[in-house]
């Protein structure tokens, strides 16, 4: 019976906060792997599923169950995709996968068209204040990504975890998934295509169901 153990309580709390559990947390990862069936049946009662992504990490997927959900803001999505892209740079292995946050922001400003940056990070901002707003929104988005364990931050450094690959779900389908693939992504990967204005993240929070 794992449900009365402290380790279960800790993992359950983390998963309910939307956290992703990667191989880097070896003890926790092992515990879930060994007791996957127990976890699965436990969350089934909530109408929720514990998913093991093909890249190895675990996360909870709740659709219409008892657990509340939220969707990530446009800023968090865009930044997640950008970090997933940067993580695929072989040169990053030299620094053991560590990126500097200031460097990341600079890269973002040079790699992404200014118009896209403004629409994603400062959609309702005057042009003169866009730069400052973009910086603020990027920092907020980083906080969200760190809270969900997509990344780990320490000072000016960040390391992307395996879970960052969730932001490459559409890229695996060359950004144009078929209708069948879309259904699979919605059901198995927690992808949402029907997006609303809640996603803009202008108020600083992600949308909540």
């Amino acid at each position, binding site marked *: 019976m794992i449900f009365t153990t402290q380790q279960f309580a800790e993992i359950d*709390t983390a*998963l*309910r*906060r*939307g956290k992703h559990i990667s191989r880097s947390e070896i003890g926790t990862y092992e515990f879930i792997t060994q007791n996957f069936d127990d976890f699965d049946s436990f969350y089934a009662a909530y109408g*929720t599923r514990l998913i093991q992504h093909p*890249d190895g990490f675990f*996360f*909870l*997927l709740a*659709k219409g169950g008892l*657990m*509340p*959900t*939220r*969707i*990530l*803001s*446009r800023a968090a*999505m*865009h930044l*997640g*995709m*950008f970090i*997933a*892209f940067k*993580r*695929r740079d*072989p*040169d*990053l*292995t030299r620094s*053991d*996968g560590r990126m500097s946050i200031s460097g990341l922001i600079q890269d973002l400003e040079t*790699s*992404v*068209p200014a118009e*896209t940056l403004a*629409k*994603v990070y400062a959609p309702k901002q005057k042009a003169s204040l866009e730069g400052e707003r973009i910086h603020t929104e990027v920092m907020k988005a980083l906080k969200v990504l760190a809270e969900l364990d997509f990344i780990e931050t320490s000072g000016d450094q960040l390391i992307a975890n*395996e879970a960052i*690959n*969730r*932001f*490459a*779900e*559409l*890229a*695996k389908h*060359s*950004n144009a998934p078929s209708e069948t693939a879309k259904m699979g992504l919605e059901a198995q*990967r*927690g*992808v*949402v*295509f029907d*997006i609303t204005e809640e*996603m803009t993240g202008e108020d600083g929070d992600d949308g*909540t*169901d």
Partner: protein
Amino acid sequence: MSEAATDQHIRAAYDVVAQRRDFHLEPRDVAILVLMLHELSRRSAQTFSISAESLRALSIKADTFEGLPPAGSERRFTESVSRLLKAEALARADMTRIRNSDDAQYQLTSLGESLANWQVQQIKFDGEPLGAILAAFNVQLSGIHEAAEMATEDKAWHERVSLPMQYVIRELLSAVQRHQRELDREHEEIRAFVPTLLKESSETSIDRCKGVLDMVMKTIQDLVHVTVDVSNAAFGLLAHIEDVGERQSRVDTPGLCEDVRHRLESITEWTNDRHKAWGTHFDTVHSYLRFVSHVDRTRRITDSLKEAIAVVPEWTLQVVDCPRLPILRERSVSAGERAVMKRARRDYQVDSESVRPDQFPQRLRDIINEQLLSGAARWSDVIGIALKEQLQVRIVSKLPELMQQMVSSGNLNRESRQYREVAPGLIVEELEVTKK
């Protein structure tokens, strides 16, 4: 050395200068030599030469190491071949001297092969010397231990224990530290080299990358074991030497042993640090191989991500959200302590105090007018009169106002501008106005 051999060397040296032999090679030329050696070793044992076409492909590969664009690759290839031929690191293998250079065959000369081999030797990450140094250190320490057991006189102790111990500390352990620095440098070079293999993303380069990582990891693991074994043995020997020293009341022994112990600990710490660092690097590169190299060999996903970040995302991810619990106040304040709320008073009495307006500016105006009646008003005179009635500090604060009043009350006399002392320590430049 025989006289004939000496003569040969001198003639060779003279020959180099006389014939103006030019061995100048660019780094990319040496890279081509190494790639050529690799290419030849990959082929069957009978092959000694490669075609111009294959050499061109190797030159393009060297271009990618330098991050150079495809434009100009042919020029760089021709220049490299020309330099290599001139330096006699490369030779034409087609004895018939085919006119068309595209049909030419090239082979490495003994100089070219030695250069390439030397370069390969340079990047071999080898911890063996460090193990050997540490083992030699223990042999030395063991000898000192034996000498300590036998030394009974001060002189013998000094010559056979104290001095060798100081030598051990200075020389052997310094050699270890030098070697550590060398290993660190090699470590950095390998770290820089791994991304070039990952960028190639071919089956061969991935295997090579894994090979390099495994080799370094094994070397470091061996080094950790050697260091632990050697230091354990050394700590034992040091304890014995210290015991003998204590028995014979040698005052310098504890200090020397402590110094060696301290340095040994720092070596062990260094080895453990590098082991940990390489473990992290090993995991990072293997994670890259698992999630990027193996699943995205053609970089289709990476390119799609690059395209995706250029536009506003039209999809999102759903994540579980913990219920938001209301945060309650810690304790409610008891009724007795709670401050009574009061309606703001609207019937209050306004207490007013009448303050007389400042009379001093007017007094200054009067003084100016009085002075003007006599024909002219001088800044120093007005201040002098005012000083009799008011404090100096008050007057100083009104000087700008006074100046404005004077200028507006009369005509400015530009000739009267000498300095005058109007009070002890208060010197002003004169300002005189005459009646309008």
